[in-house]
């Protein structure tokens, strides 16, 4: 059997300082279909991503990570991807761990593989304790609301089979999409597994990354979505 076409979708917003390293990491591990969705960045993210040889899709205005992933996933599906991996452009994910994410799909054991830093053997390097607290709270919340049993919800590192990617409907433009994807997996009974991944926290990634207070907003939006559809 021919090896599957793996597409890596990288949503990037103002990542000029980190994007090159993230892409070259991917290339070092032999991933040639790297799709960077440059989401209205005001810095040189687009130019740098282009110089690295990645395919760059540009949103003229910033819509958010959910919208960027939707664009990237739709493009990858059109380009014939068999497996789509979502990967952060800020260096928090390890390209070396992608093989671990795609294996269950190749072995036909699952259609969605979710990275988890809190499962056994997973890790969150240098994670600030307040961040950890909110992430754990998010996990409990997700179990209650989406009724899906996962150990981690918002790290952004996941692999989807072509089938799963075509079935999952991302409507939320912003960070809420992470909860939405879990919702979809549960609702559409997509077979999933969690595998351990390493998420590294550098001072920079914490500074630039999501504010802890955002967790509350996401919480409110998910409740709203649950109530009003």
């Amino acid at each position, binding site marked *: 059997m021919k090896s599957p076409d793996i597409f890596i979708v990288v949503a990037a917003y103002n990542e000029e300082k980190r994007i090159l390293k993230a892409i070259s990491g991917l290339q070092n591990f032999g991933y040639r279909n790297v799709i960077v969705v440059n989401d209205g960045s005001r810095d040189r993210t687009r130019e740098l991503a*282009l110089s690295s040889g990645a395919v760059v899709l540009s*949103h003229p*205005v910033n*819509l958010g990570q959910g919208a960027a992933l*939707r664009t990237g996933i739709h493009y990858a599906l059109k*380009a014939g991807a068999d497996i789509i991996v979502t990967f952060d452009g800020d260096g928090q994910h390890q390209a070396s761990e992608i093989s671990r994410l795609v294996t269950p799909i190749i072995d036909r054991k699952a259609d969605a593989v979710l990275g988890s830093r809190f499962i056994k053997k997973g890790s969150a390097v240098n994670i600030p304790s307040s961040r950890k607290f909110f992430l754990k709270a998010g996990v409990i919340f997700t179990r209650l609301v989406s009724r899906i049993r996962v150990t981690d919800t918002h790290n952004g590192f996941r692999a989807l089979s072509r089938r799963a990617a075509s079935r999952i409907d991302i409507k939320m433009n912003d960070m809420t999409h992470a909860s939405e994807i879990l919702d979809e997996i549960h609702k559409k009974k997509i077979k999933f597994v969690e595998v351990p991944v390493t998420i590294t926290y550098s001072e920079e990634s914490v500074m630039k990354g999501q504010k802890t207070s955002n967790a509350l907003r996401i919480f409110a939006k998910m409740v709203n979505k649950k109530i009003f559809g």
Partner: protein
Amino acid sequence: MAALFNIVLVLIGVFVIVFSRLNFSWNKLSKENFLLFSAGGLVMIIIGVFPQLSFAAASVLGIQRGSDFLLYFSVIVLFYLLIRQSVKTEQVESKLSKLVENLAISNPERKKPGKEEKSKSRQKK
């Protein structure tokens, strides 16, 4: 006091109508919203001129005072407008998202290694 309140109500009503009429002619307001706001302004003027009307409406609904009736009425109207506005905003947002996505997908960029200019060719399968 009541007289002053009535005058203010009439003035605000006139202002609302003039304001929405101007914005309508500047194409900043849809005809539908113009009519809606004007109707609101008209109600204000009518009640300002004939305050007994709001007393009557209040007593029909079992509310003690005419001014209370006005207050309840405006809260309900505002709430309705707010919901309508958010629905509209959401629709616009989802249209914008679709547009942006289509734009991005139809213009993939990739630099050929070694070449300087960007090529519009995409990966194919």
